[in-house]
């Protein structure tokens, strides 16, 4: 690195980007933690209160919802990914499924809630069709606004996201491994169970973590479905920090946000580590 003015000056070109990130990402992030760790008059520290009692229940509810939707999304999304590889000779299938998956994985928010209300709501089309074949969802106590209802809605973006994560990993499985396994007398199922699955495990686990983080941050869909979603952590944070209202518990809201960042951080680091591991096989 030459010390001339010109060579140092060229680093200024990076300044706008770095300043932008500091001001609009790092500073708000720091603000959340500073406000969360500020000791207020309450006897308990906000960071502690945010994970006790009803707020702990809120975190557990959010995490359960995320984990359950991630687990089911992992299972079904993987099946879809394997299916399009197994049915490889049907050309359009792959581009169709991958194409729609990238659309659906980006779906969320208000329109998705509308779609599920009109399908699986009390007066939904799917609810009605299922009743015709004697599957009475409402009679069984299913409500689209309850825990399992929200899980169903989340699956709409969790399944395709998992498919998108897994397809490149499956592509990375080398044909020769399959041939070797076959020539050693392994059946197709044995190959998947003892060769493919262990190699895919990091990608699967990483995908699982990403799916949890994905659902954990989701807010709009649950908000639009309202009632059942009101216990989710983001909705609670909104309650304390919406607009200019002083609830007297703003620190608690920031503390919950800080916990969300910490949990997401753990999930994302786990994801990155596992993805790096799974990429080792792909060269």
């Amino acid at each position: 690195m030459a010390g001339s003015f010109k060579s140092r000056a060229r680093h200024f070109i990076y300044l706008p980007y770095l300043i932008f990130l500091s001001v609009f990402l790092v500073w708000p992030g720091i603000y959340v933690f500073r406000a969360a760790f500020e000791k207020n008059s309450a006897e308990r520290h906000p960071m502690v209160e945010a994970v006790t009692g009803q707020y702990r229940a809120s975190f557990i509810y959010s995490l359960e919802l995320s984990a359950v939707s991630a687990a089911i999304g992992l299972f079904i999304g993987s099946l879809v990914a394997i299916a399009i590889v197994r049915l490889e000779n049907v050309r359009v299938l792959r581009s169709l499924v991958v194409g729609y998956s990238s659309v659906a994985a980006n779906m969320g928010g208000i329109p998705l809630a509308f779609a599920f209300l009109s399908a699986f709501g009390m007066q939904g089309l799917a609810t009605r069709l299922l009743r015709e074949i004697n599957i009475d969802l409402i009679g069984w106590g299913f409500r689209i606004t309850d825990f399992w209802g929200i899980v169903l809605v989340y699956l709409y973006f969790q399944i395709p996201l998992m498919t998108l994560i897994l397809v490149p990993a499956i592509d990375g499985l080398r044909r020769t491994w399959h041939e070797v396994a076959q020539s050693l007398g392994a059946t197709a199922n044995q190959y998947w169970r003892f060769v493919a699955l262990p190699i895919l495990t990091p990608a699967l686990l990483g995908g699982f973590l990403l799916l949890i983080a994905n659902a954990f941050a989701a807010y709009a869909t649950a908000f639009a479905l309202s009632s059942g979603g009101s216990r989710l952590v983001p909705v609670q944070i909104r309650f304390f920090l919406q607009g200019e209202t002083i609830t007297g518990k703003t620190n608690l809201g920031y503390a919950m946000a800080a916990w969300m960042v910490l949990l997401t951080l753990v999930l994302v680091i786990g994801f990155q580590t596992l993805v790096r591991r799974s990429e080792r096989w792909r060269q």
Partner: protein
Amino acid sequence: MKPGRLAWWLVIWVVGLFYLIPMLSMTRFAFQRIPVIKLSFNNVFSKWTIEPLLTTFSDSGFRSSAMLSIWLAIATAVLTLLLLVPTMTIAHLRSPRMRRVIEISAVLPFVVPAIALVVGFAGAFRDTIPQLIRSPFGMVPLYVITALPFTHRTLENGLASLDLRTLIDASRSLGASWIRTVLFVIVPNMRASIATASFLALTVVLGEFTIASLLLKNTLPLYLAYAQGQNPQGSFAVGLVLVVLSAGFVTAANRFGKRVVS
């Protein structure tokens, strides 16, 4: 057909139906004037109308929030490109280390969920630059941040596929200035990834709800959430338009994205 293949087809069909049914239900609810209870095989095709959509389009509340969302989306795409294209181009040319720094910083937004980002933003700026919170366009930087992991990846792929050094040397040795080189050599060569990044930014802004909801800005998703009560058919119809629009953007991004790689 072997039984194994049949099972895999079953997976595809079941999941396909799961993807399709909510969208079809929303379409039917928005555009057919028959309650689900009265629906039967005899009237599946009757009383379809696009009137709910037209009525909503003429609603002034809808118009102002739609215009706001469109302007926010454009502003976000423009700011993203202005911020990223020059910085990333220079980093590619001159400093692998800086390239790595940008790469890591671009995934940081994943770690900060939108709800945490917006409450931190509101808190940090309430006492310093309150105009940013008051004006809806104050949200543009937050949208840029939210879309950053996707837009950065796209532009990164685009830049990696170019022989930047040769292009610039050729342009410079023919006497073009730096600005001319960027505008007339680099940007046209990156048009596929620039288009992709813009489409992704548009998709993020048109669907974003959390940030606008906490800052009480009347964007299109917020309008939909609140109009749902008085005008369910109309807001479901607009919701469907949003779905189709973002599906179009994502598909376009995929198309262009493929051209980037090849």
